[in-house]
């Protein structure tokens, strides 16, 4: 049963997964080509100086990639479910609603985590070729809130889409947009380095909130 459920999720999201993987690879490839060109034209020492002393981050174009990936993954997975309230059929499967949602959301998070781990690994390895570990660590701390933003955007989609009433969907949307906004308040490199606990805690809360929507669905809120 779970296998079939996951297969259905795969069918819904396979084009997104392919698209997001290619888009990520293309963007990163372009960014590394751009960095390589700068290194050739002005020299590594100057680029290091710009990063260390002028607080520049060379990969700012990555900022909204995880956000869009998360949101699109959420839409690809949950938009078909809420069209004509098809989710009702899913919830008629001989499994608890909580279990079904856990597998669905778990699948989405798993796919996104794989995608994000792939992207950050490429970033880390690519950066280490040209930069000192201190600069790589700073870079990873800079992209941390952006990738958390991708997970939150996905969870926000699930939370909002699974909610059965528009009366509640709009406040849910507003609160999750406000939460997402907190991840994009500063462009200063590594500005979010004091935030891992906050980011982790809210990721758990947002994951659990999907159950809130499912519960309301189950008790028949219209």
């Amino acid at each position: 049963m779970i296998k079939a459920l996951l297969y259905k999720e795969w069918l819904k999201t396979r084009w997104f997964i392919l698209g997001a993987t290619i888009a990520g690879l293309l963007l990163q490839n372009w960014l590394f080509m751009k960095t390589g060109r700068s290194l050739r034209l002005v020299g590594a020492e100057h680029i290091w100086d710009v990063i260390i002393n002028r607080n520049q981050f060379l990969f700012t174009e990555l900022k909204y990639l995880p956000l869009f990936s998360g949101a699109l993954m959420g839409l690809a997975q949950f938009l078909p479910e809420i069209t004509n309230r098809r989710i009702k059929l899913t919830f008629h499967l001989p499994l608890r609603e909580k279990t079904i949602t856990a597998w669905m959301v778990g699948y989405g998070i798993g796919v996104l985590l794989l995608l994000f781990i792939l992207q950050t690994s490429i970033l880390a390895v690519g950066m280490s070729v040209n930069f000192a570990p201190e600069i790589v660590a700073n870079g990873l701390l800079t992209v941390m809130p952006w990738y958390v933003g991708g997970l939150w955007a996905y969870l926000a989609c699930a939370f909002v889409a699974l909610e059965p009433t528009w009366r509640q969907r709009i406040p849910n949307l507003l609160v999750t947009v406000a939460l997402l906004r907190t991840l994009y308040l500063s462009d200063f490199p590594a500005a979010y380095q004091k935030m891992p606990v906050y980011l982790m805690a809210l990721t758990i809360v947002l994951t659990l909130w999907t159950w809130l929507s499912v519960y309301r669905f189950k008790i028949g809120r219209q």
Partner: protein
Amino acid sequence: MKALKTLQIIITILMLSWLLPWVWKLATDKPQNNPFVYYSSLINSFGIRSTINETTLLTDARDNSYTQTQFDSILPMVYYRQLAREGQLPDSLHGQEINQRIIARNNFFYRYRPSDKNQPLIPLYALFESMPKRIDLEMPGDIMRLRKKPEFINPDTGNSNTHKSARFAIELEKNGFVGPPSLIAGNPTTRKSYDEGYVIVDQNKNLFHLKMVNARPYVAKIEMPEDLHLSWITVTEYPTKTFYCFLISKDGRLFTVQTDGYKLKEIPTPSFDPETDNLLIMGNLFHWNIQVSTNQRQTTYAVDAHSFKLVNQYTFETLPPKEWLQSSIFPFSINFSSANDKFIFPRIKFNGWTHLPASVLLLLGYLALQYRKKSWCPVTTILLLVTGIYGLLAFLLVGDTKHI
């Protein structure tokens, strides 16, 4: 599910307590016009330029008013270019010959903000050649990593220069340096007239001066009182070369490290917290204007540039912004950023109890409404009392724990 609903209400409240005060501030914010204050040794008082209702007032600390021309002439160290253009710059002042070049050479501005120190840093440093063969400074071709021992890395290859690293390590060790350092200060830019390298605090709270002279390490230990705990260092590299750097201690004392024998000199400074207050020093040939700005006041000390004795002082009390209305509506507010640092994290500010009347009114309104509906939620009642308007809006937006 009740716990999840409560969490939803609480997070909605927290988001509202961030967004609503921010919108309020956006709508009501006014500029803070702190005056420009500068000591005039000609009138033995402070010249003050302030802006009130978009009108500029030129006065002194004794409330005498000046025209712009008079103001220029009482502050020749500030307006020397204007005076020179009008042929009004005196040849000498207090027995000292002055001209544009001498004044410019001796004038300096030093600004310290808490965010200079409280920001993410990448611990890699460019150590310049302090005695370059050419007149201009050049990038050194490597970057210094200073942990237990120094290591010089070539940015092009990523390899470390073991010979140079070992030479610097031996010299630092010989002078008693114990890494990794707790504080490193320098100006890693070629846009300066000369280089004094780095001033470093090591693990044992000892102070060192490190620079590279003719490709060799130069290390000097700087004697410092044991009870002095440094919060921040700024290497100055000013044209007069009378001191190497400013030291700011954790308890807000200010020192210079003099170029003759690395002697520390304490500079009289208004009461100062390096974590929250701004420091501005405007120095000239005769006096230093040392200004500390806090949320409540801006205090300026005039200090003799040679003896470092306090000559005069002026305090401007900043009018507190009228926050009565705001604090009676909003019980607290959350900010993710601050002017005092470059980090993003939530910081909560409580506005006291002035919100209670409004909160109680909102609560009574809620109870009356719910009494008619015969539906009353204890969690919402408590949240309304404690969080006032945020609680009410959260209730209207996401409901209460009784009706999931």
